[in-house]
């Protein structure tokens, strides 16, 4: 585990009050509604939440890959190595993607071009960002494939994506994402579609490779277990906002936000004796076009008071490094402490 001690230099990535919205027939929908967080050098940050919470759109906003139209980044700052990515030209952004920030997506089959060989797809970014071509690029590509655990790499460079298994395709994606030695690797549900034994292989690989190169890793997933194992810190998102953040130990063992508590109570756990019933969050995720007033979690919250549906709580520090956006966080953490004993 890297960096439990605070890093003394400035963060690698600073996201400030990011707002991204989509225009739909029903009007403008806010997918990310004011998100601020940091990623430090070399750390692993988890972004967790259920579908529609804005975790993927946050990542796409950082990479400026939000499809436009219908999506648009309304306001905010995305400062990567001191440069606000929202203020630079698209050419300059091009050189950040790949060389500065690499990204791996959920579906390796649709992120790889089916008609080009693996070799061609790995050497392309090497040519663009590293100025490698011909034999040099090819041998670097073979090296990269070897690094992600694909045997007989020279020969595999001539393969097309369909000749590889799902796990191998994701390995190729990792090789491409890391080919230009980015400072930050974003993995957006990168192992969700894989079988558990393959998932374990890929996660270990990503974690090892990033800690070897000193790159920071941002893992986006709905799987609480993955975050618990790999992330130093995490942000819990709900309805386009971060509701709780902190170190993994803090958030998992002493959650302060009712949504975090609800998530942890919803999953059957292999590390505890089998329980007879789960304690799920009541109700459903709100319609993003029609968010409830005040705190968006109010309709599903068992601790909600009148105040919660009137005004929206801001993220506040409750402990060193732990932040929570909830008026009742004190009551929540106390009752959780009693219930979990």
């Amino acid at each position: 585990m890297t960096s439990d001690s605070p890093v003394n230099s400035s963060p690698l990535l600073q996201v400030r009050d990011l707002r991204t919205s989509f225009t739909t027939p029903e009007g403008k929908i806010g997918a990310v509604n004011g998100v601020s967080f940091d990623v430090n050098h070399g750390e692993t940050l988890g972004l967790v939440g259920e579908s529609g919470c804005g975790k993927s759109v946050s990542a796409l906003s950082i990479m400026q890959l939000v499809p436009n139209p219908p999506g648009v980044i309304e306001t905010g700052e995305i400062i990567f190595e001191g440069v606000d990515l929202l203020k630079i030209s698209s050419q300059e952004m091009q050189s950040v993607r790949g060389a500065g920030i690499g990204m791996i997506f959920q579906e390796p089959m649709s992120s790889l071009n089916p008609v080009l060989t693996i070799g061609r797809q790995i050497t392309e970014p090497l040519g663009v960002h590293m100025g490698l071509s011909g034999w040099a690029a090819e041998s670097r590509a073979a090296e990269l494939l070897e690094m992600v655990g694909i045997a007989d790499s020279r020969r595999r460079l001539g393969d097309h994506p369909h000749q590889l298994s799902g796990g191998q395709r994701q390995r190729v994606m990792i090789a491409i994402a890391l080919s230009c030695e980015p400072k930050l690797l974003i993995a957006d549900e990168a192992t969700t579609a894989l079988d558990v034994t393959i998932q374990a292989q890929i996660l270990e690989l990503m974690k090892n490779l990033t800690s070897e190169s000193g790159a920071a890793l941002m893992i986006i997933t709905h799987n609480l277990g993955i975050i618990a194992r790999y992330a130093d810190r995490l942000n819990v998102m709900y309805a386009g906002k971060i509701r709780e953040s902190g170190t993994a130990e803090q958030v998992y063992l002493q959650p302060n936000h009712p949504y975090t508590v609800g998530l942890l109570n919803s999953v059957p756990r292999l590390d505890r004796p089998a329980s007879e019933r789960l304690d799920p969050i009541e109700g459903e995720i709100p319609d993003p076009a029609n968010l409830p007033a005040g705190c968006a979690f109010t309709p599903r919250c068992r601790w909600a008071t009148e105040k919660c549906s009137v005004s929206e709580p801001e993220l506040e520090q409750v402990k060193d490094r732990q932040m929570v956006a909830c008026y009742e966080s004190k009551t929540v953490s106390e009752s959780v402490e009693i219930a979990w004993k």
Partner: protein
Amino acid sequence: MTSTSTDINQTNSSNSTPLLSVRNLKVHFPIKRGFLVQREVARVRAVDGVSFDIYPGETLGLVGESGSGKTTAAKAVIQLNNPGSGSVKFEGQELVGLSTSAMRPIRRKMGMVFQDPYGSLNPRMRAGDIVGEPLKVHGLAESRDGYRQQVASLLTTVGLSPAMAERYPNEFSGGQRQRLGIARAIAAKPSLLILDESVSALDVSIQAQILNLLQDLQDEYNLAYLFIAHDLSVVRHISHRVAVMYLGKIVETADAKDLYERPLHPYTQALLSAIPTPDPIHERSRERIILRGDLPSPLSPPPGCGFSTRCPIATEACSAAVPELKTLAENQQAACFLAQGR
């Protein structure tokens, strides 16, 4: 959904007869090549000699990774594909070889809920008609009013409001659609439900709601479940017994508690160890078995034990002969030459 007490001992499997009894089930898909004359060039042994029993009111969890044959096995049980050979007995009656018309009254007693709540509901039918269709097909509705009442009570049972009967599937959320699928599956009062990855596509908070609903329904109607999933923590939560599949074969079967406390087959051990748990301290101190390589193609399975190519403890003997399931502990069987009982 109020909490009902679950009697863990309700499924005393020793002194009742099984509701469903599957013996040596094989489903092979021929691969044919040729322009005018098609010849069989290979065979995918999707399910290759699977046996299990399900007792009334009991949940059997069937786990395995993609391509292990769990869905094919379930479809063969309900005769949705042609089993090559073997026997499937439901309430004592042999289903293999039955004609479609002879199967129809039996299908009434077996419901099925699928993974994709978006793809498995007809988008042009109203929710009420989707749920009520089995009542019509099997002639279970006596009158128009009776039918409406039955549909309304089904919707209430699964936690939806009867007023939603008029809506179309696209007006429902994923969790609500899965509730509709469950309402449809239990409409004809089946005694067995086949749940094929029915909660896999749902968000965790919704998944927990559906799991609780399934447990309530089981208590209320003494339903038996064949619960197919790849998520082992969910399977442990809902199952009384668990069978683990790999490459078309069951490699281990045991009571849920025993299987999770002391898995005997190396594949089960690796599978359990691969699942991250939501506790950072426990999770980081845990030793894990990371399997090498991918699942072999069922088209050309390795000789001997199918798992031998990835097994951390395999010896030469493992690729020479196929290990049979053998009883290694009470109610626990594993197909491994090296597994030892206690």
